């Protein structure tokens, strides 16, 4: 009999993250496929308020301890490993986010079990879990037979819609009282990045503008979109040369090399000097009125239309979707 499916329900500022809900949605499918329970593992110092949002799970396994109040993967890994040793889950799904990063690396070591990283999808095949992973920077797909439990699956964002895992509860909560060793790492606090211009090489989302933006007056439109997407505006060389954006925002051969999760290229023709700086972005969407623009050769999705027509529509849609 396989063990239960665990999802580490990470939370940020008092609520589970979207990534946690996505992993719960995937975990739900696996639990149903195996005919076992889905358990959300919640760590913190005051997790009582989280249960209501975690209705996708059959049960919540909660550990509250002062040492768990901070985002220290080392402590979380030892805590979950201790639980896993006792309860033998089939798999532990951990969302791949900056919050869960250290836990992903440490948990398999602390449990002494295998892990599958970069999981894009997972399903039950003949009573066993199979994972699909993207490796080598997305250049290869693999199918992996997940060994009998426990095993850790590190789940990429976007495997399932967050909505599918956002089910109100509360499910029964199993509060576990245990000793937690605070370890040798001390959390000193969060801080806002220092003022100064945005470092575009560190943004997950970039809205890039090219000469097709038409004039400085339209840069605002791109900024509005970037804000909705939680990213920053960057530009190709002509835009910088015109002085519409500062030099720190230039992408390309003579600017920055960027690898964001999303690169939304607006009115960028795709000159090789520019492409050299952004071709490794995970998702490239280009809007350009010239349907033969070279940018469409590197983009994953393209819209052959004037950005000034498309962007306002997109802004409306994102606003309607409650992004503001």
């Amino acid at each position, binding site marked *: 009999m396989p063990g239960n499916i665990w999802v580490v329900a990470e939370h940020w500022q008092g609520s589970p993250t979207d990534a946690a809900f996505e992993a719960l949605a995937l975990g739900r499918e696996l639990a149903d496929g195996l005919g076992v329970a889905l358990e959300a593992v919640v760590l913190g110092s005051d997790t009582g308020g989280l249960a209501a949002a975690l209705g996708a799970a059959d049960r919540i396994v909660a550990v509250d301890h002062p040492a768990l109040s901070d985002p220290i993967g080392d402590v979380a890994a030892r805590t979950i490993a201790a639980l896993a040793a006792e309860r033998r889950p089939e798999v532990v799904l951990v969302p791949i986010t900056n919050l869960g990063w250290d836990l992903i690396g440490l948990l398999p070591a602390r449990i002494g079990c295998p892990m599958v990283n970069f999981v894009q999808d997972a399903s039950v095949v003949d009573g066993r879990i*199979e994972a699909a992973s993207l490796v080598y*920077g997305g250049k290869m797909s693999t199918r992996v037979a997940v060994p009998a439990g426990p095993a850790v699956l590190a789940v990429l964002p976007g495997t399932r819609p967050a909505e599918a895992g956002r089910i109100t509860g509360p499910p029964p909560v199993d509060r576990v009282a245990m000793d937690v060793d605070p370890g040798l*790492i001390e959390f000193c606090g969060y801080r806002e990045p220092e003022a100064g211009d945005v470092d575009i090489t560190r943004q997950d*989302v970039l809205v890039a503008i090219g000469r097709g933006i038409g004039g400085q007056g339209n840069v605002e439109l791109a900024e509005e979109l970037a804000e909705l997407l939680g990213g920053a505006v960057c530009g190709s060389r002509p835009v910088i040369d015109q002085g519409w954006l500062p030099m720190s925002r230039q992408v390309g051969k003579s600017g920055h090399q960027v690898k964001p999760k999303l690169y939304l290229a607006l009115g960028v023709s795709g000159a090789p000097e520019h492409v050299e700086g952004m071709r490794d972005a995970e998702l490239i969407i280009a809007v350009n009125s010239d349907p033969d623009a070279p940018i469409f*050769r590197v983009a994953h999705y393209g819209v052959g239309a004037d950005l000034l027509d498309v962007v306002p529509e997109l802004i409306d849609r994102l606003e309607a979707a409650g992004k503001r």
Partner: protein
Amino acid sequence: MKILVLLKMVPDVVEELEVAPDGRALDTEFLRLIVNERDDHALEQALLLREDAGGEVVVAGLDAPEVDDVLFSALAKGADRAIKLTGFPEGSGAPAVAGMVAGTLPSIDGLLPVDLILTGCQALDDLDGMIGPLLAAALDLPYLGLVAAATVEDGGMLVSKEYSGGVLGDFRVELPAVLGIQAAAKPPRYVPIAKVRQAMSTGTIEGVAASPAGPAPSIEVIEMTKPESAGHAEMITGSPSEAAARIAAVLTDRGLL
């Protein structure tokens, strides 16, 4: 302060990757390896820490084609000592490699104790685990990954990690510790080829055979395939409003909204 930097070679994705005839791994015929980009940042961070705090930087590379070039280049950049760890069985996964490295370090003359072990916080071939945290667990040392800034303070390190929205989290960790470096304070430095050539003629790489370790967890790849690459964008047609709807749907699918 004595810093050990662990370097590994990963497939260079500038070259087209191909699937091996067995359909389960990379074809090695055209495969070329390159040092893991984050490991290069780890080396840079180590050199910067030494500039600030003094001490010694030792680089250890996992044996692979072209790793000698990387180690000589590290010596040319200023590393004090270069070690090549050899003898990992073909197809060893990350847990096995980390176990062997952990078991081998104590046997290397004059290496331990080190104050700090730095390595890249991730690599694009980390399918079955990440070396940094696996090694930290095996050596029972604290680990912090995604490190974007690190400074020495009172026998410990002050470390910053990045969270979404650019928010930084600050940590203090006692030494010795293992850090997974996301980005060094400065981009990895350039070392002119003349200096690399000089390191090749005057420097040495110490070969150390890794000691065998016990069984390690592993996974089985059933199949490896190349995702279809269109070579051209999928064009979204329709009115601006329809196009915007489709873009929003794509962003939702990818978890970007």
